[in-house]
């Protein structure tokens, strides 16, 4: 635990307000200038089922959800039992003594009769979660005014309820002030940062990035955890004169996206594994006809319907190798919420520049976790548009006449003299179907020349840790913060370790190869069974990475990665399949 930092988990039955309590706490803390990062689970069912929310709040940028819990708020007995083993020594448990009878456990315990206060004192059973919030405010120095103002914005629509909610907040605050003697060391210090910060989820940042990059058409089909991208765009696009379609299925969605982009409009769809599976054939069409499009796959645990509310990084091999035939695809995976904004812009840029599908791989944890972040630095987010034919080129327009990097100027309907037929068939420069060996060789190479060119794009690869590292870590996607934190931990302990975190996961940039050459051992942590990124690295660079896989439907913690580094450093992990 760093100074002034708290890892708090709220656990209870779905419907008890676990999520909204967490969200309000998080926002209030952020408004006060603290840094936050959250993680939320969902029960499998619409109503009922066990539910928890975790927030880590502190003065410095929060890199991961944290490992051991400083504070556990248990709404019921299950909430208490399930999470006890994740408590940090010296941690604090807040619980309802009418529902939970704790065994002696060595933690600091603050019993608060939540239900009783809500029911008897307030006559407002659903106010339990606000009582908790008031209590937390009183206990850990979260200024009550800030909580109140969040409650006003979030729950203020119905005036009669607002009053009840504010009363509940106050009741919780008063209760701890009067009845609880604080014996723990946790205190949210002075706010670290006074500059205005944003609190966004991965999906929020993605929507912002897409609109900023110029996305003006969205077609999609609902699926957890991607639906809220669609829902946000259903609201925004009409105001921007854009187009929007909830299609009949994911096949219809990606088809409409391709049709729209064919006319020159930047277009996107977002889905999760099952929908992504359905889009494979049309992604091949976009590859062949060289039509830009952005496909978000917010991964969840598979295979099949799997665990729809759990995270996993297990669509990578599919994203890279999917689709019949030799189909070039760019795959980008953001590392953090803030990065999701930039990588979404990159996804549109590369798609437009190289006229091919770009798959943006997020996952359930990144899509729905919230982080504090600064407003994007737009100097790092140039917007690129596709290459259009010049009037001279239109004189004898050859749609697929390729420049050096394989890219051809693309005409769109409405452009005089640009008429051509976008083909799913193999074709010559004029887009006429042609099946002779020379044409197929030439056009296949053209398509892959674009992919090779994309690998040279100046997309940042963050690097953490020692210059002279012996152990290298290559991570991808939403585990960036956990890996960075693990590297900091390990470096502090004297390990010679460094990590890189490519966001462009296909094609792989040459720097990745250089990093592999520079270290003795490469650990590849990822949340899937097969070690899919490790396979991709091994196939590309021909070496034996140490696979470090987790497949529990949960993200890595920094500690897990740190311990793996220790293990490898101490030689207790084989390189073949760690």
């Amino acid at each position, binding site marked *: 635990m760093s100074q002034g930092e708290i890892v708090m988990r709220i656990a209870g039955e779905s419907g008890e307000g676990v999520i909204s309590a967490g969200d309000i706490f998080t926002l209030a803390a952020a408004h006060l200038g603290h840094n936050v990062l959250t993680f939320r689970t969902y029960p499998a069912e619409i109503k009922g089922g066990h539910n928890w929310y975790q927030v880590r709040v502190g003065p410095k940028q929060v890199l991961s959800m944290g490992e051991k819990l400083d504070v556990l708020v248990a709404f019921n007995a299950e909430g208490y039992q399930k999470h006890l083993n994740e408590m940090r020594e010296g941690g604090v448990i807040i619980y309802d003594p009418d529902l939970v009878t704790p065994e002696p456990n060595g933690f600091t315990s603050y019993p608060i009769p939540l239900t009783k206060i809500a029911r008897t004192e307030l006559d407002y059973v659903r106010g339990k979660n606000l009582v908790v919030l008031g209590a937390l405010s009183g206990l850990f120095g979260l200024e009550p005014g800030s909580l109140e103002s969040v409650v006003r914005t979030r729950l203020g629509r119905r005036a009669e309820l607002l009053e009840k909610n504010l009363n509940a907040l106050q009741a919780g605050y008063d209760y701890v002030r009067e009845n609880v003697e604080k014996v723990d060391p946790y205190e949210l210090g002075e706010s670290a940062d006074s500059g205005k910060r944003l609190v966004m989820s991965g999906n929020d940042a993605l929507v912002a990035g897409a609109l900023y990059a110029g996305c003006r058409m969205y077609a999609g089909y609902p699926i957890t955890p991607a639906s809220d991208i669609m829902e946000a765009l259903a609201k925004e696009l*009409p105001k921007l004169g854009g187009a929007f379609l909830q299609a009949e299925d994911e096949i219809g969605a990606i088809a409409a996206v391709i049709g729209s982009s064919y006319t020159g409009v930047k277009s996107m769809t977002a889905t999760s594994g099952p929908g992504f599976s359905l889009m494979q054939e049309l992604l091949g069409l976009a590859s062949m006809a060289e039509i830009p499009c952005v496909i978000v796959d917010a991964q969840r645990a598979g295979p099949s319907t799997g665990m729809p509310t759990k995270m996993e990084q297990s669509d990578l091999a599919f994203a890279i190798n999917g689709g019949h035939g030799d189909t070039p695809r760019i795959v980008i995976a953001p590392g953090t919420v803030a990065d999701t904004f930039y990588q979404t812009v990159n996804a549109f840029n590369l798609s437009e520049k190289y006229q091919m599908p770009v798959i943006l791989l997020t996952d359930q944890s990144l899509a729905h976790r919230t982080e504090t972040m600064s407003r994007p630095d737009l100097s790092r987010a140039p917007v690129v548009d596709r290459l259009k034919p010049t009037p001279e080129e239109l004189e004898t327009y050859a749609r697929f006449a390729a420049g050096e990097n394989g890219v051809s100027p693309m005409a769109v309907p409405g452009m005089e003299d640009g008429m051509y037929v976008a083909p799913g068939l193999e074709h010559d420069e004029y887009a006429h179907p042609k099946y002779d060996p020379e044409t197929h060789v030439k056009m296949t190479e053209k398509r892959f020349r674009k992919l090779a060119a994309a690998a040279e794009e100046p997309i940042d690869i963050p690097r953490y840790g020692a210059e002279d590292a012996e152990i290298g870590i290559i991570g991808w996607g939403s585990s960036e913060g956990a890996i960075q934190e693990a590297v900091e931990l390990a470096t502090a302990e004297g390990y010679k370790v460094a990590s890189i975190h490519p966001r462009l996961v296909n094609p792989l940039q040459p720097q990745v190869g250089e990093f592999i050459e520079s270290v003795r051992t490469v650990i590849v942590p990822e949340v899937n069974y097969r070690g899919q990124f490790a396979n991709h690295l091994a196939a590309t660079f021909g070496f034996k990475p140490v696979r470090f896989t987790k497949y529990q439907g949960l993200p890595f913690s920094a500690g897990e990665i740190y311990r793996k580094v220790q293990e490898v450093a101490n030689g207790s992990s084989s390189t073949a399949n760690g």
Partner: protein
Amino acid sequence: MAVVAPLTVKDYKSSVKPTWCPGCGDFGVLAATYKALAQMQLSLHETVFVSGIGCSSRFPYFMSTYGLHGLHGRSLPLAQGVKLAHPELTVFAVGGDGDMFSIGAGHLPHACARNVDITTICMDNSIYGLTKGQTSPTSLRGQKTKSTPYGAILEPMNPVMLALTYGASFVARAYSAKPQQLTQIIVEAVKHKGFAFVEVLSPCVEFNNTFNQLDAVVDIMDENHDPTDIERAMHLALTEAKTNLGIFYKVERPSYEQEFATLAPEKSEFNLDTFLNKYE
């Protein structure tokens, strides 16, 4: 700008020679389409032909307009994407009976219901032409095909009835061998603001040559038919005695893209700063 000479049929022809079998019904549809477009003077660069996969779906290559030769069954969602992104374009979706009623069967109801302003021409030959002769959703019961060696056991689907049920706002049937009516129906379908569905009986001379049977049965529809009467249109569609040709149904209602444009009456540019304010 110089005065532009009117476009002729020749101007709509691309340099690609149709690769259909000599005598294929699709030639008639192509010829009628050239004529209809010339009659309407549709601008080449503002017209898009979208298709699926099949013999009939080769159509766009033979037009000198823009085109999108898509995937089997996907002409309609592709075409909707084109139209929603650029409502000022004239958009056609063309293809075969397999394309639209078998693998594309899930898209048709929704395209009709949305009433996106697209002209759909289905060249119905009651067979899979390109894959050399398997049964299609409109194959007749008893029809022997490569995949029904004992004769098909299903009753054929009724494309006009389907389109009517789905709420297409323009529904017609024509015959490749009756070029004048076909041309006129295409003209009407394009003029219609909304989703226009045109089934064209277009025999496959190679695997299901029905020209003779059709010549014997097709019948031009009763002139007094009121094309706004849906139940009467359905009745005509269900009548098996003769294969009616003509416009079954035609009503005006707002298209998806028109309705969508009214959702947020005031349009503005995207402003990232304003957008982000709500996350402060």
